[in-house]
């Protein structure tokens, strides 16, 4: 039995992440160059404005903050553990993380209800979108469950999960404490890999085309067909 479990662990925590990353990079890059037209946020605000605000704004701000927290724990585990060494700071961090998690969940539920109830929005919802919603719902739900029932995540993530993730990055996979993790944590990690692996085929690719050049480009954009560059006179000016 333990052997079977061990095999499953290897499949889910070693094979799956590499498979997911491979699909992710191959899928997004090929889609970007082969079908650039399909890269879009596919916003539906135009068809429905009110529920859109109450769903999409909390969801996005929530999930971005929570994701940023995961990235911090991955990049600076020592710093995080140091911060958490005082209980008060730990409580503040965990509470705010939970609040943003709940914000994400509330927004997500709002967005799903909007998709179900507004007929115009149903019209622009594909089967794939429902799958994305299901994955996200499980992911956010399991994340909040873990945060509530397996404290203190910010510390044990940094101590246990971060070494495991880095071992994957360094191509010398070491399951370490992963095999002993409770079911909810394992579910959360596996769903994360599934989300990453599926994202190239879904609307989630809009995350990759966030408008970064916008902040430093000039306001006006001119394109010339005859030449790659602007004319000489303009370059001088």
């Amino acid at each position, binding site marked *: 039995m333990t052997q079977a479990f061990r095999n499953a662990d290897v499949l889910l925590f070693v094979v799956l992440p590499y498979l997911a990353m491979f699909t992710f990079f191959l899928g997004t890059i090929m889609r970007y160059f082969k079908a650039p037209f399909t890269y879009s*946020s596919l916003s539906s*605000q135009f068809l429905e404005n009110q529920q859109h605000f109450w769903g999409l704004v909390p969801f996005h701000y929530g999930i971005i903050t929570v994701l940023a927290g995961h990235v911090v724990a991955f990049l600076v585990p020592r710093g995080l553990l140091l911060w958490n060494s005082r209980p008060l700071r730990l409580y503040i961090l965990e509470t705010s993380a939970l609040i943003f998690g709940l914000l994400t969940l509330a927004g997500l539920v709002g967005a799903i209800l909007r998709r179900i109830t507004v007929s115009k929005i149903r019209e622009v919802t594909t089967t794939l979108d429902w799958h994305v919603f299901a994955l996200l719902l499980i992911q956010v739900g399991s994340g909040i469950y873990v945060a509530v029932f397996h404290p203190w995540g910010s510390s044990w993530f940094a101590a246990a999960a971060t070494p495991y993730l880095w071992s994957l990055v360094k191509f010398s996979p070491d399951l370490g404490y992963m095999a002993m993790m409770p079911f909810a944590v394992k579910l959360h990690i596996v769903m994360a890999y599934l989300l990453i692996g599926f994202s190239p085929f879904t*609307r989630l690719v809009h995350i990759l085309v966030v408008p970064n*050049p916008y902040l430093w480009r000039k306001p*006006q954009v001119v394109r*010339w*067909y*005859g030449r790659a560059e602007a004319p000489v006179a303009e370059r001088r000016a």
Partner: protein
Amino acid sequence: MNVRSQISMVFHLDKCIGCHTCSIACKNIWTDRRGTEYMWWNNVETKPGTGFPTDWEDQEKYRGGWECRNGDLELKSTGKARTIFNIYHNPSMPTLDDYYEPWTYDYQHLFNAPEGPDQPTARPISMVTGELIQIEAGPNWDDDLGGSPVYAQNDPNLKGLTPDQQQQLFAVERLVFFYFPRICNHCLNPACVAACPSGALYKRGEDGIVLVDQKRCRGWRACIAACPYKKMFYNWNTGKSEKCILCFPRVETGQAPACFHSCVGRIRYLGVLLYDASRIEELAKRPDEELVEAHRALILDPSDPEVIAAARASGMHDSVIETAQQSPVYRFVKEWKIALPPHIEYRTLPMLFYVPPMSPVMSNKTNGAIEHVSEELFHDIDDARVPMKFLANLFGAGHEAKVRYALRKQKAVRWYRRALTVGDVEMSVAQRMLTEADCSPEEADAIYRLTSLCTFDDRFVIPPSHREEAIQMMQDPLEHKQDTGFGFLSGPHRGM
């Protein structure tokens, strides 16, 4: 000096009969696809009226265009940081309800209805959901003042008019309105381009046509709010923005754009203007009352040897310069000064100009009889039923001088022609009117000819397309017929 060429337009409002032929020509070619049914890249509005989308001129609501803040020109809708924060939900974007929900009718029911005592009817069904709907608005819902005063009284251009003047507009049996056909202005300082977070919107260097790169648009929707003329449209099906493309596949092959070609009243003129791109920002920052003049100052004289030399230096083909010299738009805008930009106070420097309407002005006098010989030759222009202030709000950033000048000149030309052909106006009176309107008899003749006797080739002076510059032509747009209409080979599907 950085000389660029721009395909520019003049709409002569006096000649517009409000037939919507232009809108239909455009719709049939470009916007009959799913997701675009509600779009009217070309539409014709009745003024006074709230237009399409409803209240588009109300920039407190939609926050379109530019404004001067501490000496800097900034988008009214957004700083760059605000764009990023509002990317999940744009607070000032119009939604489908501000346009209208497109519909068709359940015609099949006429054939399939079971036999019964009543005649079957074709009920309206939404083109978005396919469900039965109640029609609550349409693209020209207040056409010919239909629904007034509910719609017309909300016209933002009525701002600053006295109650008497407003009364005058809506007096029963003396109602007055005119038509206001609108397409994308292909501005020199386009707010849509500046607002686009993805850099998908761009102005073509060769001819100034503003386009959306469909492959780079991500549907962040900032352009929809930023365009003060509301001529950016969101395709809810593909998740991309779309706009008037000035029929570039037609223009590149020497044909007039569809709305120009089909215009029954022949109100539309198209030609090249040369302008100095290095002065755009400086001139767009001028105070409201100087803007019309500043906009004109940007436009260069295509016969000036200095301008020609600078144009050549910036790589412009001689044939384009020659076309600019024959441009009817240059005549109307710069030589005669009777065509004015719409809402120049939005500071996008639109390149579509309007000759303000004269007809309703002229028939104002006692009991509808036109009094054309009076001591004060121009006084009925200021007494007109369409108050000068209203026209000034549309075409002069609220300042009347430029509009009055254009109307006086038009009137003088009419009186002059009347003296020549009908003979019920004394030539001496007509001559005096011309002098007072800053117009020579030769100029009056030229205005008359280009307004009344203009042929197809007089109205549309399209620069020859150079194969080496027009990539679309080399790629053969016909190859992509029935495809996306934007020149690449993949259907306009939503997502993957």
